[in-house]
């Protein structure tokens, strides 16, 4: 197969590369110790060609990482030019401005050699169980409190661990075995990737990935450009407020569609703050690319080609382009809002594709000890409701824009000794609309042991609800209570013996005028208890009816 690759072979090899990325990712998830990796899927795998163009990714990769990986590889290759790399080398960095925006995520890169020549790279990214410093908390003021930063470095040299670097890691983190174990899982994943890519090249009689990569990037870029071209030209703006410990922060964007390109600029966004919620530009670009992709080309596997028609800019020093030494540990609590910000901007241009704001998720970092003395260092997640879309109610209790998996109450209780008193959907919490926002939920955690447990909160939407679109109403706010008393949505609390933590997850925004909601849908909501009779009267103008 020496000629330019034909569409049949391109499709076949492209799908194979995605399957390879999937295999690597699954092996990492299954062998990881980090709860972030195994329950929140805080992990990614991306395959690059030898020029560093991303060409395939694992389907269940964290969207944030998929978007930052192309920038990370640029930084790594600038430091270690391809000509200097040898078989068996492994590169790594967790620098927030080069990696994923905060220190716990380590990006691990394996140069892929085939018959002695460099043909590409496999990058895997995992959220490590610990990276030192004060741990992941909103209260950090500077990056120096947020643990160890590994600038681009060689983790392995020609197959041998670089102990000088690994020893620095060992000396800086709390749960050494878990951290090193997870890094080894990434390293092993890269080796598996190199082997599978070699077998793939063998099978299709290819010397390298370049013909395939050209095809992948060309077709994807063409598809993205065609979609952008179908969006009416113009500049579309939006702004929203995001809660922060010292007062709300403004996020603003202007999306300019011109022909087959889009420029997304965040001028007007507020300045970085003295808490750990600042967003490095790589993360801003990542979620911008994600938002545009979901609106234009959701079915096309992600790769470098999709980024080419996009220009993403933010003024230096604003909270979406924070500079060193801003603290960034909780960058997601601001960065996730880029997605509804962009959807809101494009609502006028793409009314049938955008989604009303979602309730998003709560992440809790829990530390302490069980009654039997065993240490607890784990995470807990709860999801709010999704925003509604044209023709589609928002799904209840579903994460956005990130992803995670349910924490089973039974497993949670067995592992932590912290009891889940109940978990219930919150009626009327979904924003009213012709299509209703998804419901949030209430969960109550109760410390039945006699040992205090520390809980770090990264809550959002406790002041600014998920907004509706086109007359749809906002979803309910998120609330946190300690023994029934309201507490701030961000920060660290101690759940003492006998105390309870109540979390009310935010609902998603509605879409369209509630008065136009279909009567069968109203009746179904009432029958299911997703909306109460009072809610129906208040939000939809329905008169109470007798009996149901």
């Amino acid at each position, binding site marked *: 197969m020496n000629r330019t690759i034909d569409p049949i072979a391109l499709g076949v090899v492209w799908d194979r590369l995605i399957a390879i990325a999937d295999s690597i990712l699954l092996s990492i998830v*299954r062998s990881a110790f980090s709860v972030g990796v195994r329950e929140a899927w805080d992990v990614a795998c991306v395959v690059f060609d030898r020029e560093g163009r991303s060409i395939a990714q694992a389907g269940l990769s964290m969207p944030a990482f998929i978007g930052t990986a192309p920038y990370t590889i640029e930084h790594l290759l600038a430091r270690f030019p391809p000509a200097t790399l040898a078989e068996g080398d492994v590169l790594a960095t967790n620098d927030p401005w080069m990696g994923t925006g905060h220190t716990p995520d380590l990006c691990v890169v394996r140069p892929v050699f085939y018959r002695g020549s460099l043909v590409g790279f496999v990058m895997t990214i995992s959220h490590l169980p610990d990276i030192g410093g004060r741990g992941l908390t909103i209260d950090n003021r500077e990056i120096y409190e947020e643990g160890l930063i590994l600038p681009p470095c060689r983790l392995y040299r020609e197959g041998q661990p670089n102990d000088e670097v690994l020893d620095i890691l060992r000396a800086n983190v709390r749960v050494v075995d878990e951290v090193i*174990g997870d890094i080894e899982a990434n390293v092993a994943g890269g080796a598996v990737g190199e082997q599978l890519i070699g077998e793939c090249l063998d099978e299709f009689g290819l010397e390298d990935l370049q013909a395939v990569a050209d095809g992948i990037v060309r077709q994807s870029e063409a598809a993205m450009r065609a979609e952008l071209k179908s969006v009416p030209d113009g500049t579309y703006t939006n702004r929203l407020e995001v809660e922060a410990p010292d007062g709300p922060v403004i996020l603003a964007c202007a999306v300019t569609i011109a022909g087959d390109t889009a420029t997304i600029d965040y001028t007007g966004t507020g300045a970085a703050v003295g808490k750990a919620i600042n967003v490095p530009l790589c993360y801003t670009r990542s979620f911008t690319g994600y938002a545009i992709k*979901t609106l234009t080309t*959701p079915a096309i596997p992600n790769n470098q080609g999709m980024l080419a028609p996009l220009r993403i800019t933010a003024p230096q020093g604003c909270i979406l382009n924070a500079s060193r030494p801003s603290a960034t540990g909780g960058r997601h609590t601001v960065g996730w809002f880029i997605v509804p910000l962009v959807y809101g901007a494009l609502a006028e241009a793409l009314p049938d594709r955008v989604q009303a704001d979602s309730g998003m998720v709560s992440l809790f970092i829990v530390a302490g000890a069980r009654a039997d003395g065993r240490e607890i260092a784990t995470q807990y997640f709860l999801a709010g409701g999704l925003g509604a879309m044209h023709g589609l109610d928002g799904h209840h209790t579903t*994460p956005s824009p990130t992803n995670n998996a349910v924490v*089973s109450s039974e497993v949670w209780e*067995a592992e932590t000794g912290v009891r889940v008193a109940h*978990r219930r959907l919150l009626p009327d919490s979904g924003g009213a609309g012709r299509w209703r926002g998804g419901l949030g939920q209430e969960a109550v955690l109760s410390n039945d042991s006699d040992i205090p447990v520390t809980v770090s909160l990264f809550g959002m939407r406790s002041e600014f609800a998920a907004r509706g679109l086109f007359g749809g109403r906002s979803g309910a706010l998120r609330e946190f209570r300690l023994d029934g008393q309201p507490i701030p949505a961000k920060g660290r609390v101690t759940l003492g013996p006998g105390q309870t933590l109540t979390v009310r997850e935010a609902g998603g925004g509605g879409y369209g005028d509630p008065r136009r909601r279909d009567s069968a849908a109203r009746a179904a909501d009432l029958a299911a208890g997703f909306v109460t009779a009072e809610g129906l009267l208040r939000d939809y103008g329905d008169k109470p009816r007798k009996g149901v």
Partner: protein
Amino acid sequence: MTKGDWRLGIDIGGTFTDFAAFDQRRGKLHIHKQLTTPGDPSESVLSGIPVLLGEAGIGIAEIDSIVHGTTLVANALIERKGARTTMLVTAGFADILDIALERRYDMYDLRARYPAPLVPRRLRIEVGERIGADGRVTVPLDPDALASAVARLVADEDIEAVAVCFLNSPVNPAHEAAAVERLGEACPDLTVTSSADVIPFLREHERWSTTVMNAFVQPMFSRYVARLEAGLGDLGFVGSLAITTSSGGCLDPQTARRYPIRVLESGPAAGALMASLIGRRTESENLLAFDMGGTTAKGALIRGGRPLKRYDIEVARIHDFKPGSGLSVKTPVVDLIEIGAGGGSLAGVDARGLIRVGPQSAGADPGPACYARGGGTPTLTDANLALGYLDPESFLGGGMPLDRAAAQAALTREFGNAFEMQAATAAWGIHETVNEQVVRAFRNHAAERGFDYRGATMVAFGGAGPLHALRVARKLRIGKVVFAVGAGVMSAIGLLASPQAFELLQSDWVDLDALDAASFDRRFASLVQRAAAPLDNAHKGARNGFAVRRAIDMRYSGQGYEIEVVLPDGGGADLLPRLPGLFDECYARVFARPFSKRPIEIVNWKVEVSVPAPPGVADYRPVVRRRAGKRIGARPAWLPEDEDFVETPIYDRYALETGDEITGPALIEERESTIVLGRDDSAVVAASGDLIATPAAVEAMT
């Protein structure tokens, strides 16, 4: 009791019901196939039996036992036609089915949809009771309050079935058991299912979801079995009836009625059983079963003569067949590979501008373009017809002529503009894209299970399997492909190999360090006791022929993923010191490198108690009328090596005799399918009647 020599396998599929009657003593096999009666599938069973008996020239009294498989339960779940069901659930947790997995299965598709729970929210009743993670009762149950709440709902809502779903019941099932007992007294007409009885697995969403499904289908399934038993009685049948599960074992009717979720779908299990039979015929320990039909392809791996199994499956996917868009079930099943590609799969140009086949299917109506029933989008069947692999005149034995011109026109319409491709080139692209999908699925599945398929044998069947098998085998470097005789009713034959078996999985988290030999032995003794009980019905308590297989799911403390370790024989005193080594070995097979120093936990305890099917089925010889004329003509068929059509000889499978050898390119036609031999592929007819093929490339390599 009869002492007849004959056993009967009957499998109900979506379209056809297959029958196989086997004479234990003489090895003779008679087969029959007829359309399924969707309204009441027992009708096709009861009307088909006399036909088959007539063909075999025997009376019903000579039938010793009937093994029965059905898609009834899966269909009821897909169509959501089940009982009005209520869910009794621990107070505070009624919404778990709605809250569900809190996970998006597609990161980019904002319109991804999720299945609604089978029990509507207003039909769930919260019950004041609580058992802690350690098994201690923290809130006692009030059975009388519960019974009156259910009685009210039964009266108001016409409830037929109850699913009892309490938190932490796998650790301590006492409250669930008390609720079941009280409801039995208060509402004797209800069918009652409890979660720790259905699957004592520790994760409430998965367990409860499975329990609700069991309850939902129970009344319907129970009536079906009753009708079937009565009908068989009317025919004069006095032998035993057994019903095959999704994991390939079979259950007596009473146990099957208690756990209908276990008989979710027998088809794929029967396919895997058939493949293990073929393995015995051809002395192959490791096999790949490859079955491609009208809408999907399915695969299974057989290691050391046993189909690989697992404990989860998803049914009734509602969004583009995507994993995650269906109902998840925790039940023993054959570890199935599912590929969204079959004969009816639609082919087109995807958003990338490349060929895409499936997962959408043209179904039976309008069907592929070549059915000429108004279908305008090309399908895999259209591609195979355009390539000359299928004969337009002999499809389904000539019962349904195909329109080749319509297939070519559809291909040109779809791909001519996009790629400036000839219909034939596009057709080959579709054929090859599907081959690759199958190869990828097998390869990933095998890799995740540490299964080395290169020395394995492939068994190919289904309407489209034989068209693709040799090309798939070449890509996988598999050296032997078997096309079994009787493949048209292979699921019915497979059922005859179904052992009586019952599997149990019990979650019970224990640190390995804290486990002593006595408690290890006690746990397994109790599990074996529970798993053997359902088999006692058929064996009157005599357990001497029972085989026991034990396994445990283990993980390194702190990891979330457990690995099954099959235990060798022996007691705890002997096994406990060996467990870390056994675990590391299994771990390394999947992940390459163990963490030898980490503490290990046991998460789930598993046993399977079984009684093997009577031997001899592997030597079956179908009674068929041999036809005259082996070579029945030739037609142009696509030869990829030449990138052109080549006049290709056609053989009639039913005329071939033992020892006949054919070298490709060639087409061997069966009633349900055509075996495509590519250039230098070869095939020989074995004494058993099976066709054994060797792919060209593999032969060249060895």
